[in-house]
């Protein structure tokens, strides 16, 4: 109990530091603005916009994971969180990519 009060339990969410939150909110703002600017400025082709907004979203995803959710490998619990996170990632990939693949195949075979 004493240890818990003094040592600040982190529950695998890392140390609380203002600097990391500031970095997080600044980089997320910049990435968001880049995405919206790419679409609104209408000076890119569709392919370029796809590339820009998806890379911005993926980078922002990892920035948010690290800066706000504080996913880390330093504690045992952090490692457990990451393991379940990776497992979820595998399931999500198979659900999303699998569905899109099957549906586009069906569309190709039935509609044309």
């Amino acid at each position: 109990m004493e240890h818990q009060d003094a040592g600040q339990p982190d529950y695998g969410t890392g140390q609380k530091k203002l600097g990391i939150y500031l970095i997080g909110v600044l980089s997320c703002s910049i990435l968001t603005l880049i995405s919206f600017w790419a679409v609104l400025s209408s000076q890119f082709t569709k392919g370029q916009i796809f590339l820009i907004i998806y890379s911005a979203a993926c980078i922002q995803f990892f920035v948010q994971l690290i800066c706000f959710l504080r996913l880390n490998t330093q504690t045992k619990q952090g490692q457990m969180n990451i393991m379940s996170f990776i497992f979820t990632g595998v399931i999500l990939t198979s659900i999303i990519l699998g569905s899109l693949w099957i549906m586009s195949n069906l569309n190709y075979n039935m509609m044309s």
Partner: protein
Amino acid sequence: MHSEMTVHEHHLDSNSTDVFGFWIYIMTDCILFGTLFTTFLVLNAQVQNGITLKTYLDLYDVLAETFLLLGSNFTFCLAILSLYQNKLLRVQAWLALTFLLGASFVFIEVNEFIHLATEGFSWDLNGHASSFFTLVGTHGLHVSFGLLWILMMIIQLPFLKITPITKRRMTYLGLFWNFLDIVWVFVFTIVYLMGAL
């Protein structure tokens, strides 16, 4: 000595296990949103009667929503910081600001829904519209429940004070609230920005 150690570790473990359990819940929520995104993407590929979101979309509204949610995320982090400095009033103030930002987000979103529905992009129009309202609406509902939760924390903190228990509850709330912002990143990229092309 040995038995003391195990008791001590067990206590820490039960707390950590609770938070890990909440993390698992967040992961199942990820899968829920993943299936909704898939539904949206599949139904978005073939729109039968040609009416899509593009005609009715106002990207500046979405930009405002994005920054409101990001801002509320940051103010929540500041609340967590104050919590670990044992400053109760500041925690409540940051939580109240978080609540205001989140409430503005929901307000803009509901207005947008009403605007879309009255303009003719109703949820019963086609599969594309239905999946749009289901996906964005589920996210909005999550944010609304998060707001309710923030309100409960603001009310209960002065009574319960800052204890390991309230710290743990704030950790849950923080995971939930930050997770919603992550989902929103994909909502505005896949639904709104792709929809505007």
